[in-house]
């Protein structure tokens, strides 16, 4: 049986309170009420929920996977109930804006909490993660009427959100997006096919708010002609109640290497005349709007890397303590493999690199809080530059290392690691997507070199080292 998940609270608290330290965050006017005691209470409560509710569903969810029938997707047993518990406990709205029902807590605190969810059950956590992206896009770029209508139920988790960017011919290169948006009175009619849509369809919530990239008829070619639309699964009446079913369908879900409990949908818009969509912000600025959201999504995926590495380490460490095999120099008895130098080397590579990745991800989160909430504009600006520099590193370095770490986790198990029942292989399969989605490693490396180093002649990079 796979090992239980236990949140690494000591390391999390060390990084928060001593390395960052958190006093730089709760000395900000916006966060003065966030005491160290409150931080520790939240971390302890989250660790219980992660360990007791989400963690045990990780393996069963992987084995059962999602099922598709006539446009509907059923998530694995226990997932819907866990989602209900998750939103009722208020976990989903931790860092969301209090104007829309969120708790307005710092990103620096939400980051270790999110790490726990990803460690406990990465496939489950993808739903709240994508919803957070939709919330961010609407909060920054939609009209106040759109915000009032869509944000409160998204923030509370009553509805979920998705990001519809990729098309069969538009992957890393979004200039090739070809979905259409035709003006039609106060809204647009959207048509086209979107692929790889995480939680594009599921049974967690009564409504799903799709954010969709599409082109207006007169749009210029390339990235400067892409607009962003809100396309609800069920149309929303002005009083917030649900109206008729929109012309958007999940036509299939993918069979994937990992994250089996997370439905990856092929979405078809406008098969019977056009899906009703509402323009977000100005026309032709969709990609720019997506990027404000995507930078945080990249940090979130980097954190997934930390999380899956931690889980793989815990799995390997438990096995190494239990498995008795072979003799160790200068000892007569057979001992658990933990005593072999090479097993220790592998466990230490897993442990120390995870600690290093965690520290960097939390430092980037703290800089994000400073960039948003520091009263001094020059500090906000300097912090944002630091976040911009660190984002591709947190994203690509943490996820590339996570794959190596999960692979070492399999290696520690020997032949048993190659057998699914042990649980080590799932982490390697799940980790494998993290270097691909939200911008591949190649995209991140090009971003670091071109936009973050060459563009300012290395100034920000050199200010760090």
């Amino acid at each position, binding site marked *: 049986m796979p090992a239980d998940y236990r949140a690494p609270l000591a390391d999390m608290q060390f990084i928060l309170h001593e390395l960052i330290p958190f006093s730089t965050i709760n000395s900000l006017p916006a966060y003065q009420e966030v005491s160290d005691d409150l931080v520790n209470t939240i971390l302890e409560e989250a660790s219980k929920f992660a360990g007791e509710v989400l963690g045990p569903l990780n393996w069963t969810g992987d084995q059962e996977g999602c099922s598709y029938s006539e446009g509907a997707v059923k998530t694995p047993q226990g997932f819907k109930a866990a989602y209900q518990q998750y939103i009722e406990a208020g976990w989903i709205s931790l860092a969301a804006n209090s104007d829309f029902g969120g708790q307005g807590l710092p990103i620096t605190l939400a980051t270790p909490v999110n790490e726990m969810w990803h460690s406990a059950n990465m496939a489950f956590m993808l739903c709240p993660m994508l919803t957070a992206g939709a919330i961010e896009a609407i909060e920054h770029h939609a009209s106040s009427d759109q915000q009032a209508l869509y944000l409160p139920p998204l923030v509370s988790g009553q509805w979920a959100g998705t990001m519809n960017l990729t098309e069969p011919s538009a992957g890393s290169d979004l200039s090739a997006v070809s979905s259409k948006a035709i003006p039609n009175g106060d809204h647009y009619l959207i048509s086209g096919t979107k692929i790889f849509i995480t939680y594009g369809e599921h049974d967690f919530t009564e409504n799903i708010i799709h954010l969709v990239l599409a082109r207006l008829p007169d749009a210029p070619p390339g990235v400067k002609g892409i607009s962003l639309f809100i396309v609800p699964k069920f149309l929303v009446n002005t009083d917030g109640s649900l109206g008729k079913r929109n012309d958007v369908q999940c036509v299939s879900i993918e069979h994937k290497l990992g994250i089996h409990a997370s439905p990856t949908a092929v979405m078809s818009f406008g098969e019977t005349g056009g899906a009703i969509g509402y323009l977000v912000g100005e026309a032709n600025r969709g990609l720019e709007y997506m990027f404000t959201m995507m930078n945080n999504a990249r940090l979130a995926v980097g954190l997934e890397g930390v999380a899956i590495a931690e889980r793989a380490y815990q799995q390997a460490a438990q096995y190494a303590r239990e498995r008795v095999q072979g003799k160790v120099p200068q000892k007569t008895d057979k001992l658990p493999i933990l005593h072999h130098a090479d097993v220790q080397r592998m466990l230490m590579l897993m442990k120390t690199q995870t600690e290093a*990745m965690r520290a960097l991800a939390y430092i980037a989160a703290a800089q994000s809080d400073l960039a948003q909430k520091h009263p001094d504009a020059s500090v906000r600006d300097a912090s944002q530059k630091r976040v911009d520099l660190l984002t591709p590193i947190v994203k690509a370095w943490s996820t590339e290392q996570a794959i190596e770490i999960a692979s070492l986790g399999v290696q520690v198990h020997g032949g048993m690691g190659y057998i699914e029942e042990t649980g080590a292989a799932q982490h390697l399969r799940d980790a494998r997507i993290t270097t691909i989605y939200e911008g591949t490693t190649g995209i991140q*490396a090009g971003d670091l*070199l071109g936009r973050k180093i060459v563009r300012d*002649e290395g100034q920000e*990079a050199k200010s760090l080292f």
Partner: protein
Amino acid sequence: MRGKRQKAYFKEMQASAIDLKQSSSEELQTIGHELEKAIAALDQAVDWLLKMHIKNPQATLAGAYPLLKCFGTVCGGWLLAKSALIASHRLQKNSGDRFAQQKIGSAIFYTHEVLAQAPGLVSTICSGESVAKAMNDSLADLLN
């Protein structure tokens, strides 16, 4: 002018390396020295990339991932080194602090096993012209 402006910035990693080198513990001094070497290597890679990116963009792009990996590796080494320094202060107050002992162990291990790879990655990056040409030559059948 550019040099002057750069000096106005606070070099955080360098500052940590200096703190570690001034520690009374030989182990922490070693971490400080190794961190300093890794920072110097990363600095060399960035200078090379800045110099080369207009002349031969393919050569610098070939090194984009090695650069990212090197940058991550050095950031990780820096933060574990800083952690070790904090842990050493905790041990001065309580010599039985097991978490602090483990943190120092983590930092020493990472320094020798992981951070030590940084200069190798820099060598890869700075060989970018040769690497780019070799890729072109060896993949010629595919490229044409």
